[in-house]
C-alpha cells in the first residue's frame, strides 16, 4: 500500500499541521511516511501545501507531480492541483470561497463543508481536523487509536487537553462528505 496525498490551501488553515498529524499517525502505525511542505515564496504569498506519502514500503521520491488524493481548500489550489490527481484518484474539497468547481470525470470527487460546520460548532481553529475526518472516512489508512497517538506526538504537551476536541472534529468530518462525482 502506498498513498500519495497533496493537501493544499491558505496559510493558517492548518494544512501543514493536518499533514503532520496524518504522517505522525502513520509512523505510530509502523508505516513509512514523508511530509514535504512548500516553504518557499508561494507560502509567503499566502498559499500553503504539503505532500504526504504513507506506505508499507521504503518511500522513493518525496516530490511528486501526480497524487492518489488531493485535499483542496482554496481556489488557487484547485486551479493548480485538480489536474494532478491520478486517473481513478480522489479529490476532496471544501466549497467555501470557491468560484470554480472541479470538472474532471475520471476521478472520484467529494465535497466537505468543513469550514461552515466547524464555525457552527465553535471548532474553527481545528477545521483542518474536520477535513481530515472526511479523508479518513474514504481512505481509512490509519486506525483511530494511532490517530490518537499521532495527535499526542504532534501537539505540544500544553495542548494535550484539546485532543478529545480534535477527535470530535474528526468524527464530525466523517459525516459531512457529499459525493459530487463517483466512478462506477
Amino acid at each position, binding site marked *: 500500500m502506498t498513498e500519495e496525498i497533496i493537501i493544499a490551501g491558505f496559510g493558517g488553515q492548518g494544512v501543514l499541521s493536518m499533514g*503532520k498529524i496524518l*504522517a*505522525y499517525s502513520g*509512523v505510530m502505525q509502523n508505516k*513509512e*511516511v*514523508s*511530509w*514535504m*511542505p512548500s*516553504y*518557499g*515564496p508561494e507560502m509567503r504569498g499566502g498559499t500553503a501545501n504539503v505532500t504526504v506519502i504513507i506506505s508499507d514500503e521504503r*518511500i*522513493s*521520491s*518525496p*516530490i*511528486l*507531480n*501526480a497524487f492518489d488524493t488531493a485535499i483542496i481548500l482554496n481556489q488557487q489550489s484547485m486551479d493548480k492541483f485538480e489536474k494532478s490527481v491520478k486517473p481513478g484518484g480522489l479529490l476532496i474539497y471544501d466549497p467555501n470561497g470557491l468560484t470554480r468547481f472541479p470538472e474532471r470525470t475520471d476521478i472520484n470527487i467529494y465535497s466537505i463543508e468543513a469550514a461552515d460546520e466547524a464555525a457552527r460548532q465553535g471548532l474553527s481553529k481545528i477545521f483542518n481536523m474536520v477535513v481530515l475526518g472526511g479523508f479518513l472516512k474514504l481512505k481509512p489508512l490509519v486506525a483511530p487509536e494511532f490517530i490518537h497517538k499521532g495527535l499526542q*506526538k504532534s501537539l505540544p504537551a500544553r495542548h494535550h487537553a484539546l485532543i478529545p476536541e480534535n477527535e470530535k472534529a474528526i468524527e464530525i468530518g466523517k459525516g459531512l462528505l457529499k459525493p459530487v462525482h463517483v466512478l462506477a
Partner: protein
Amino acid sequence: MGELRLMKGNEAVAEAAIRAGCDGYFGYPITPQSEVMEYLMAEKPFERTGMVVLQAESEVAAINMLYGGAGTGKMVMTSSSSPGISLMQEGISYMAGAELPALIVNIVRGGPGLGTIQPSQADYFQAVKGGGHGDYKMLVLAPASVQEMCDHVKLGFDKAYQYRTPVMILSDGAIGQMMEKVVLFDQIPRRTDAEVIEQCPWASNGRPATRDHNIITSLDLDPAGQERVNLKLQAKYKLMEQNEVLYEEIQCEDAEYLFVAFGLSARICQKAIDLARAKGIKVGLFRPITLFPFPVIEVSNVGNHVKGILVVEMNAGQMIEDVKLSVGCKVKIEHFGRFGGIIPSPDEVVRALEQQIIGG
C-alpha cells in the same frame, strides 16, 4: 532500537549533534536551514549536555569560532546555506591547512548570488573541488533521507577526528525541510577535558611540562615546510579515497541503463525507476553517498555494463564531470538538470532518459 520520531532533516541534524556529544554549535540564520539553530535553542542542550549554542554575528565569525574551538580539541559544528557557506570558504581552507576536525552542514539553495530559498545541488563543485584556496579536500557526505541526515552527523564527527579534517554534509532545502521517520541513536556523553587531552594530543589546550607547545596554524613561510604539509594532506586524502567511499546501488543487477544521482535527486530517480520499469525500460540507480572520496571504481564497474547513463542533478552539470572521469568514454553519458530551486519531477526524468539516452 533507538527513539523513533517524525522530524525535519534540519531538526534531525540538530538532535544528532546533541546526541553525538558535540561541544559547540556556532551559526548564523539563513533559510532553508534556520531550523537547525531554532531547534537547538528550543532544546537547550546547554542544560542537557553542556553543549554551547551560539548565534555568531556573521558566518565569517561562526567558521572562525569553529577554528578556535576545534583547535582546543573540542567537537564543533556549524550549518548554513549556500551564500553563507561561500562566506565561510576562507575559514574552511584554514581549517584544512591546520588539520582541524569540524562538521559543516550546507543545506543548499539555488544560486548564484542570493539566488532563491528553494532546494538546489549547485554547490557540488564548491564542496568537492575546494571552494576555498589551496590543494585541500573535505570528506563530503550526501544524505538522501532524514535518517541519513541524523546518521551522517555522527559519521561526520567520527571521520573528522579520524582524519583531523573538516567534513561537510552537503544536503539541500528539500531534505532539510521535509519530515520523515527517524530512529535516533542514544546519547553519547560529551568527552571530559581529560579525554579530549588524551584523544587529541595535537590540540592547544594547555601545555604540560612533558611536551613542547602545540601550535595550530596553516602558515609555514618556508616552502620546504609547506610542501611537507601538502604532502601530508595529500597522503591523508589518498587514505580517504582507499577507505571511506560510500555508495548505494538500486536495481542495477539487470539494468540496461543507469541513473547516477546523489541526495534528493537520487530519491526522485528511484520513483523514475518505478515509472520506467512499468514501461519495460530496465534502468537502475547508482547513488554516491560520499562525494569526496568519489566512488570512482564502483561507478565505473556498473557504468561500463550499461548502454547509457543519465546523470540527474539539480544543477547545470557538475557531478557529471566525475562520472565521466570514472566511467570513461565508451558509454554515452548525458546530464539532466533543473536549476534555481526547481525540483525535477520523476516523469520528467523518465522523459529525459528516453529522449537523451535511449532515443538520442
